[in-house]
C-alpha cells in the first residue's frame, strides 16, 4: 500500500485532506474559514466509538478520496425538470455540485424577500452578522469542514412582517463526475420578526436512472426565526444510492415563533442528519416530522435535539423509519427541558417498520427534564407489518405482496401528507408508491 493511500485510511487526517486549497474572495469570510480549518485539523474524525456516531460508520467514506469541485457540468432546465416545483417556478435557487447555477435559478420574488447566492451579498449585514453563528463548527467536525469552505451558499432573508406566500425552493443537484467530488452546501435563512414562509431544501442527483455516482455532500443550514415569525421547512434527501450525505441544521427560535420541519430521507448509501433546535425566548411552537424509507445496504441516521430553554414552548415530534432488506436506520431524538422552561408541552414518538430480518433499526428517544411543571411524553415502537391489517386486506382479495405494499405506503403517507406543497406531496407519494409497485 502506498503512503498516499495509507493516509486516506487515517481517519484523523482524512478531513484535513478535504480542506479548500483556494481562498475566498472576501476577507471576513477568509477569517471564518481559517478558524474553521483549524478546527478541522484539531477535531477527530467521528467514529463508531463516539456515542453520537456509534451506529453510522462514516469511516466507510475514508476509502474514497473526494476531490474538490472545479467545474460544473452545463445542465439545462430540461435536465433538472423532474425536480422543479410548480408552486416555486420563480422562487428557486439551484446549486450544482455546490456551485450556484444562476441560469437554472429563478428569483422573481415578492417584496420583502431576498433569496440569493452568498457571493452576490458578501457585504450584506445580515449575512455577516449571522453566518456561522448558529451551527457549531467549534465541536462538530463536518460543520467545521463545511465552514472552512464558505463561499457559495443560499441566503434567504424575509423582512419584518413579510408573509411570503410563494414557497422557496433550494435545490442542490449532484451529478456523476469522473472522480468522486465533495460539495459543501450552505444555507442561511433569516425570518425577521412577524414574517412567514415555506422552504424546501432539496438534495438530488442526476442522472436519476441507470447511474449511482459516488460523491459526498456535507451540508449546513442555519435558520433564525425571529419573534412571531413562522418557517415551514421541508428537507428532502434523495441523493444517489452510492452517495455520502451529512447534514446539519441549526434552528434558533425567537419569541412566539413557529417552526415546522418535515425531514424526508430516501437516498444515499450512508447519511446523517442533525437537526438542532434551540428556543431562545418563550412561547415557541415546533412540529417535527421525519421519515426515512431505505433498503438495500443504506444507512440513514437522524439525530435531533429540541432544546427547551424558556417557558411555554410546545414541540411535537413524529419520526418514522421504514427499513427493508439489509438497511439500517437510526433515530436519536433528544428533548431537553431546562430549568427555566416551565409549562413546556412536548411529545415525541418514534415509530418504525422493520420489513426484513436482515434490516436493523436503532431508536433512542431521550427526554431530559430539569423543570418541574411541564407536560412531556415520548415513546418508540418497532414492529413488523400487523397480522390483522394484512388479513383485512387479504380478505378484500389483495394478495400478500399488494397488501404489504399498501400498508407500507400508508405508514409513509402519514408523514408525506404533512408536506405543505401539493405537487411535491404528490410526487413523494408517487415515489413511495412506485417503489411499492404502483399500488394506488
Amino acid at each position, binding site marked *: 500500500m502506498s503512503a498516499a493511500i495509507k493516509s486516506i485510511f487515517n481517519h484523523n487526517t482524512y478531513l484535513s485532506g478535504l480542506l479548500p486549497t483556494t481562498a475566498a474572495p472576501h476577507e471576513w469570510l477568509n477569517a471564518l474559514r481559517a478558524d474553521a480549518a483549524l478546527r478541522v485539523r484539531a477535531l477527530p474524525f467521528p467514529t463508531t466509538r463516539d456515542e453520537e456516531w456509534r451506529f453510522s460508520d462514516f469511516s466507510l467514506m475514508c476509502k474514497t478520496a473526494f476531490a474538490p469541485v472545479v467545474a460544473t457540468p452545463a445542465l439545462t432546465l430540461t435536465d433538472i425538470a423532474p425536480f422543479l416545483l410548480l408552486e416555486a417556478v420563480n422562487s428557486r435557487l439551484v446549486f450544482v455540485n455546490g456551485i450556484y447555477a444562476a441560469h437554472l435559478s429563478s428569483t422573481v420574488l415578492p417584496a420583502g424577500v431576498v433569496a440569493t447566492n452568498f457571493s452576490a451579498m458578501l457585504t450584506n449585514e445580515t449575512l455577516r452578522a449571522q453566518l456561522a453563528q448558529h451551527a457549531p463548527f467549534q465541536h462538530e467536525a463536518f460543520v467545521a469542514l463545511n465552514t472552512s469552505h464558505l463561499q457559495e451558499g443560499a441566503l434567504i432573508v424575509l423582512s419584518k412582517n413579510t408573509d411570503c406566500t410563494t414557497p422557496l425552493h433550494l435545490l442542490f443537484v449532484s451529478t456523476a463526475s469522473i472522480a468522486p467530488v465533495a460539495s459543501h452546501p450552505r444555507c442561511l435563512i433569516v425570518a425577521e420578526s412577524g414574517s412567514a414562509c415555506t422552504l424546501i431544501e432539496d438534495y438530488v442527483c442526476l442522472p436519476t436512472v441507470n447511474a449511482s455516482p459516488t460523491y459526498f455532500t456535507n451540508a449546513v443550514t442555519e435558520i433564525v426565526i425571529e419573534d412571531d415569525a413562522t418557517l415551514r421547512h421541508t428537507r428532502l434527501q434523495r441523493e444517489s444510492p452510492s452517495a455520502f450525505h451529512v447534514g446539519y441544521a441549526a434552528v434558533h427560535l425567537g419569541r412566539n415563533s413557529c417552526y415546522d420541519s418535515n425531514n424526508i430521507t430516501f437516498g444515499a448509501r450512508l447519511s446523517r442528519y442533525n437537526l438542532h433546535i434551540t428556543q431562545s425566548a418563550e412561547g415557541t411552537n415546533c412540529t417535527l416530522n421525519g421519515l426515512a424509507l431505505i433498503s438495500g445496504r443504506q444507512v440513514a441516521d437522524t439525530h435531533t435535539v429540541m432544546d427547551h430553554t424558556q417557558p411555554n414552548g410546545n414541540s411535537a415530534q413524529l419520526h418514522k423509519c421504514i427499513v427493508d432488506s439489509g438497511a439500517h436506520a437510526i433515530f436519536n431524538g433528544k428533548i431537553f427541558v431546562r430549568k427555566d422552561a416551565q409549562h413546556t408541552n412536548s411529545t415525541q414518538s418514534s415509530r418504525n417498520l422493520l420489513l426484513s430480518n436482515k434490516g436493523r433499526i436503532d431508536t433512542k428517544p431521550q427526554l431530559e427534564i430539569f423543570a418541574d411543571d411541564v407536560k412531556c411524553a415520548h415513546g418508540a415502537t418497532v414492529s413488523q407489518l400487523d397480522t390483522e391489517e394484512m388479513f383485512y386486506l387479504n*380478505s378484500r382479495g389483495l394478495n400478500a405482496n399488494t397488501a404489504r405494499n*399498501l400498508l407500507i405506503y400508508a405508514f409513509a403517507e402519514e408523514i408525506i401528507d404533512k408536506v405543505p406543497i401539493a405537487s411535491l406531496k404528490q410526487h413523494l407519494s408517487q415515489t413511495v408508491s412506485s417503489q411499492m409497485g404502483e399500488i394506488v
Partner: protein
Amino acid sequence: MISSSSKTILEVRNLSASVSGVGILKGINLTVRAGEVHAIMGPNGSGKSTFSKVLAGHPSYTVTGGEVMFQGKNLLELPPEERAHAGVFLAFQYPIEIPGVSNSAFLRLAYNTMQARRGGEDLDPLEFNDYIREKSRIVEMDPSFLDRNVNEGFSGGEKKRNEILQMAVLDPTLAILDETDSGLDIDALRIVASGVNKLMTPNNAVIMVTHYQRLLNYITPDFVHVMRGGQIIKTGGKELALELETRGYDWVHA
C-alpha cells in the same frame, strides 16, 4: 327464498380449530344454501367470531379437523385472498384504518383485483367513480366518504357502513357479518341492515354473527344457530332468536 332445490354454497363438516394451541372450535357442522340467511348467536367465548375468521382464512387460527366445502372447492386449502376471489366476504367487527389511501382508491383496487380474477373488465378512476357513487347509495353514504382515507376518523357506524359498501363492491356469494351490529345506534343499524337486504339475491347467502336479536328485526334469518363451547348446539327458525332474547342462553343444551 329458500327452496330445497337451492344449491348448497357452504358445507362445514365437523370443523375444529385452535389458536396458540387452545382448541376453540370443536366440531362445527353447518350447511348454507343459496338464498339463505343464517344467524349465529351464542354467549361470549362460544367461538362465533373464531368461526367467521376461520372461514375467511385468518392466519392465526389452525384448523385441526373437519372440512369446509365452498361451491365445490376445499376452502381450507385457499389463502384468504383466494377465498375472497372465490366469493367469500367477511365484514369485520373492527375494520382497520389505512391512512394515506383514499376510500375510493382502495375500493377500486379491491374491485379491479376481483374483476381480474373473475375475468371481468377493469374500471378506470372515472368509470369507477360513477360505479361507486351508485353503490354508496345502498348504505346511504355521503360521497365525501369516498375521498377520505379508508376508515380514518370514521365513527363506528361509518366503518360498518363502509364494510357493507365493500361487500356491495366485491359482490360475494357468501357474506359473513361478524358482529356488524355492535356499536351501532338505531339509525346506523337500520341503514346497515337495509344495505345487506338490498344485496341479498337468490344466488347468494349471508351468515350473521351477532349477540343480539335486534339486528334480526331488520334482517330476517331463515335459521338461527346457537353456539356454545365451540359447537352449534341448537338450530331453529327466527323464533329461536326471540326466545334467546327473553330467556338467555342458559336453558339451551346440546
